């Protein structure tokens, strides 16, 4: 008896046919995949502009089948503001890392949030500068060993990690704030929903949205590739709890 095969998974057509060069075990491609799936499902491919920061994920500019602008390190929320203000009916989002958004560019994201810019800021938070080979960012957790915190991040010397979603949720101009994870299949599915809610918030013109996605970086954490999810679970998620922090009343997605 022949079994009819059902296609249950395919690469988003918005991710093109080129390959990427990110490390095995990296969480960023998972996050970007569900982001692009959302744009496809929302039928916004021809209406979306992505502004990418500088980090490992910048390589995805060569794959994403939507209009993209590359920004300077940290400046994407300002650049996205320029795009959105002149094209208010488009869907505009930033794609940045923790080094980009929280370390180098915290001014830009804070002011964009306080102005209530109707954009969506997406932060891929792996608590390290992955691209440089594992250095401390503003979100590296206490005790985390990096090439610039050899004995682990010491609050006396290096300060404490910044929790951007918790910081921005009280801003009047901020409509949607959430944190997701991509270290488990369930996490990926939930993150997709968070991103959908954030993009829908923008589509309805309700205000600024931020989704921080905790992503694995075994290379930058100096752990075996397969240990990435475990390391994230043990060391990062207690500091960066997953869930929705703010959602507009009546948002039904």
């Amino acid at each position, binding site marked *: 008896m022949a079994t009819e095969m059902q296609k249950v998974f395919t690469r988003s057509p918005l991710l*093109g*046919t*080129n390959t990427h060069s990110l490390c095995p075990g990296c969480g960023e491609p998972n996050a970007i995949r569900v982001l692009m799936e959302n744009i496809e499902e929302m039928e916004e*491919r*021809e*209406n*979306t*502009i992505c*502004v990418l920061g500088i980090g490992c994920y*910048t390589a995805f*500019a*060569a794959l*994403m*089948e*939507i*209009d*993209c*602008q*590359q*920004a*300077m390190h940290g*400046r994407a929320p*300002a*650049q*996205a*503001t*320029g*795009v*959105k*203000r*002149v*094209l208010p009916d*488009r869907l505009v989002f930033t794609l940045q890392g923790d080094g980009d958004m929280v370390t180098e560019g915290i*001014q*830009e994201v804070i*002011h964009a949030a306080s102005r209530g810019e109707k954009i969506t800021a997406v932060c891929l938070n792996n608590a390290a500068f992955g691209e440089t080979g594992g250095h401390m960012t503003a979100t590296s957790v206490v005790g985390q060993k990096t090439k610039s915190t050899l004995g682990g991040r010491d609050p006396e010397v290096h300060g404490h990690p910044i929790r951007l979603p918790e910081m921005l949720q009280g801003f009047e101009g901020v409509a949607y704030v959430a944190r997701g994870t991509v270290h488990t299949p369930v996490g990926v599915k939930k993150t997709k929903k968070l991103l959908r809610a954030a993009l829908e918030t923008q589509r309805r013109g309700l205000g600024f949205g931020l989704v921080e996605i905790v992503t694995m970086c075994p290379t930058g954490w100096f752990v075996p590739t397969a240990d990435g999810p475990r390391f994230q679970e043990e060391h990062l998620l207690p500091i960066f709890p997953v869930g929705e922090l703010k959602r507009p009343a009546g948002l039904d997605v």
Partner: protein
Amino acid sequence: MSDLKRAFLEGGHALAEAAIQAGCRFYCGYPMTPSTEVLEYMARRMPEVGGVCVNVESELEGINMVWGATGAGVRSMIASTTNGMSLMQESLSEMVLGRIPAVIVNMGRGQGDYNMCTRGGGHGSNPAIVLAPSSGPEAVETAYRAFHLAEKWRHPVMIFGDFLLSHTSETVTFEPPEDTLGPLPDKDWATDGARGRPPRLLTSLGMRITDAPDGSPLPDAQTRTDVTAPMRLAVQRHEEIAAAEIRVETHWLEDAELVVSAFGVPARFAQYAARLARDEGMKIGFVRPYTLLPFPAETFRRVAERGLPIAVFENNAGQMVQDVRLAVEGRAPVHFIGGISMDSSGFGVGPHIDALHILQRLREVYATRNAA
């Protein structure tokens, strides 16, 4: 107000109005004297024409907003002053590589930003096209021209003025100059949502190049990355711009025995000083570079080939004079007769911005012109 054709306006206001009439629909700025008036004017006028004016939280944010808005295909401008320009430099440099045709106005304090503007103050030394108007009417003309050149070459254009340009009221006429009336290339780079077309990437990093190094198309929608391509193309573009866009004002070169050169509003003082000197019988010629980049080196070279000494007046410690020296390549003596001149405000207006002061310096140089 929307069809303003002729008005008596401060230079900063006149430049802002001309930008709007040239189609600028996004402006942002951070207040700083003497560029504040551009922001004030735009804050009032932009909403009237359906444009956007943002009072930004820093110059750094401002320049990147202009990057985004320009990249979306809308004519955009930012004005700032000296220190604010320093803050923008990383993005300015990269906007040259990324070919973002924005217009950037530096109403400087004095003329000490000449090198920053013409060399490109950021990494890699990637300068914009730099235009230096010397009056309100020319500032108006320059606003139209800046947007035109920016899109013609797909290259940022900087307008370099000062306190005197921004604050002097003159009668201006809002009429695009003839050289800006020609057709411009399609904005086939604008990222405004890929409606009915393949997606675009606006980048300074040489990603998503669709042809091979020999220019032949890559097969099957493949792309490649070449991080040096934007740099090489910028160099090539500068050569093409230099061959096509140099503008320079000259007077009395035919019988000159000494040539005085200056740029911006101080050049009007220098020109007047030259006229006074000629009234005294001194044969003095005058050269005013309008395009600081590309620099009118050929004009200076021709002067130098006649062995004529050149006196350069600038309100800084001597910056354009270096370009003059490079242009003449030792063929003629080059004297610096400028200097840093500021009153207590620090805004760049001081005792040397005075035709009689410049006249005295010209008398001194003229007297020694045959000494060498």
